[in-house]
């Protein structure tokens, strides 16, 4: 087992924190929010978490293949299938889910066929399928609701998701199917990684890329169908994409990204479901997505290296370090001009040359013992400072500041 790099250690810490938050959320919500964990709520929480876990993992591949919008088109395309299945089989959940799956799958085939044979671009076709099939689904649902069948009210839940509708059997279904999906991913890990990264290379090397592509797409469809009842057609794509996008901010390794995405998804799914059940009448889908979006926002802001906050801090550190180096140069040049390397230069002059950043630079130099100040607002180089200022730029960079040089802007 190779030793862990600092990045690896950081990622494992994030994983540990996520698991901890997951574990703590239940007692937290029970005590602070006054949520009562009766049987229904436990089921709901488990269902949400299981769904989030599965979507998070599979969503990684959707995001990396740049097919996030495909997930959206597919989930919207599932709606007519639900309505038609109801017309045929009544309110039978497995039938409804199969209907959703068939409808989604037909959606993919349609998108692929139209993209292949016409000059329309893929995102255009996805938009068309999304809008038109969803509209067809809504029309069918309205028709279904026009009939006197009392149980069709439940069909609305497929649009926005309703956690309260979940029973233990559903959770079991998600868990079992989810395990099946994970098994497929584990077995075909390197193949999926390869076709996601370089499809052409995989093809040139004899991989059955069309088949692998179809398998991955099927996994996405299954994940979407599993989540329709809980998160709803409109927002399911969020649960697919958000955890993966958040996870990408924290790591450079696909393996870690998948684990993190699963955890983030589980957290979003579980907490969203719990929060929606805590208050009467709150729809689940939106709350899950709100939680997921929070995770994405935190990741984008605070992730090391890629995060915005991190980059700001880094930039400020760099500016200060470069200011110090520049002032060091100025001091040496000015002192040389006066023929005495220990010459004390007026601070005002240095600020005039460099701007106000010179002051911060001078203070940094003083801290490092490279320059010293005098009561009359003048500054002179110390022997060490003279030594350093004479050497090449790359050596100077190593000496003035302990912080590691960033290797990339990402």
């Amino acid at each position, binding site marked *: 087992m190779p030793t862990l*790099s600092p990045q690896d250690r950081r990622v494992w810490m994030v994983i540990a924190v996520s698991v901890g938050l997951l574990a703590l959320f239940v007692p937290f919500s029970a005590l602070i929010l006054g949520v009562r964990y009766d049987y229904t709520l436990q089921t709901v929480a488990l269902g949400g978490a299981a769904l989030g876990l599965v979507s998070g993992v599979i969503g990684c591949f959707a995001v990396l293949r740049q097919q996030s919008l495909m997930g959206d088109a597919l989930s919207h395309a599932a709606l007519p299938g639900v309505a038609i299945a109801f017309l045929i089989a009544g309110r039978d959940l497995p039938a409804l889910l199969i209907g959703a799956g068939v409808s989604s799958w037909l959606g993919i085939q349609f998108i692929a066929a139209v993209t292949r044979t016409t000059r329309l671009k893929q995102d255009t076709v996805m938009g068309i399928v999304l809008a038109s099939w969803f509209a067809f689904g809504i029309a069918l649902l309205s028709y279904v609701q026009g009939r006197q069948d009392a149980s069709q009210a439940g069909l609305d839940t497929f649009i926005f998701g309703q956690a309260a509708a979940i029973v233990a059997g559903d959770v079991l279904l998600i868990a079992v199917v989810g395990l099946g999906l994970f098994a497929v991913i584990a077995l075909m890990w*390197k193949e999926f*990684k390869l076709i996601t*990264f370089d499809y052409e290379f995989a093809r040139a090397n004899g*991989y059955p890329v069309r088949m692998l592509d179809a398998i991955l797409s099927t996994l996405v469809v299954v994940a979407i169908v599993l989540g329709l009842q809980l998160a709803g057609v409109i927002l399911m794509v969020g649960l697919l994409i958000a955890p993966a996008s958040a996870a990408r901010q924290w790591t450079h390794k696909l393996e870690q990204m998948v684990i993190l995405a699963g955890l983030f998804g589980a957290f979003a799914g579980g907490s969203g479901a719990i929060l929606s059940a805590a208050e009467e009448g709150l729809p689940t889908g939106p709350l899950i997505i709100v939680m997921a979006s929070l995770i994405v926002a935190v990741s984008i802001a605070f992730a090391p290296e890629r995060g915005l906050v991190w980059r700001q801090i880094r930039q400020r550190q760099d500016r200060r370090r470069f200011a110090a180096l520049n002032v060091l140069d100025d001091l040496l040049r000015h002192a040389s001009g006066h023929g005495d390397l220990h010459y004390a230069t007026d601070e005002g002059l240095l600020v005039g040359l460099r701007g106000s950043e010179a002051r911060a630079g001078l203070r940094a130099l003083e801290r490092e013992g490279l320059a010293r100040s005098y009561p009359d607002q003048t500054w002179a180089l110390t022997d060490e400072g003279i030594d350093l200022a004479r050497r090449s730029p790359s050596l100077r960079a190593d000496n003035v500041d302990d912080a590691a040089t960033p290797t*990339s802007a*990402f």
Partner: protein
Amino acid sequence: MKSPDNRQRAALRIEDLTVAYNSKPALWDIDLTVPEGVLMAIVGPNGAGKSTLIKAALNLIPRAAGEARFFGQSYEKARHRVGYVPQRGSVDWDFPTSVLDVVTMGLYGGLGWIRRPRRAERERALHALEQVGLVDFAARQISQLSGGQQQRTFLARALVQEADLYFMDEPFAAVDAVTERAIVELLRQLRGEGKTVVVVHHDLQTVPEYFDSVTLLNVEVIASGPVDTTFTEENLARTYGGRIAYLRGGSGAAQSLDGKEDHADLIAAG
């Protein structure tokens, strides 16, 4: 060098290859033989079909007619003897993976379905990275690489497959002078080991210096053979169909070649 009474088994033999996009021929009736052990450049103007030629030969794009044989066999049978280095732009360089990982992907094909790459595969990948001078970058994330380093990573991925025939699509594009020298050295080494290398090349200036064979392509094959006899002003004029400025080695004087004013040679529209 090769005697005229040949090897029956050329590294690559293409016959009657035609590729069309929207009913316009991108490649027309290509006949090309690449003998074993040469370092060949494929040159031609934009739109000449250079990349298309390689992709069609490797069955990456459909063809309207013709066939390609590799060491006397079809591509499916000879696949393990052929390595391909595509253009850099074909990949998402923000993908979460390391340089070593990318090179190891070159070995996936030999592993079969369920097996994971292990130590043996990593050793081979590291060796390939050594050959291209990137062994210190093995753990680096690929988004942190410069253009030249990305190119060399792709090169290592092809080298690790230990093929006998390599295709490279513009390996010198947007690469600095140091990297360019390093790649040329590597190509010469491969030729020294008896391998065959076919390179789509954009810089006429360096053809005589880097390569021993050349194919001049403009939808059709204008000429193909050893650089000395094939890379002539007349052939270049026929390929490029107009004025091109070409510096003849050593003299330092730019020579302008006047070709025909009518562009009847150019079948492919721009």
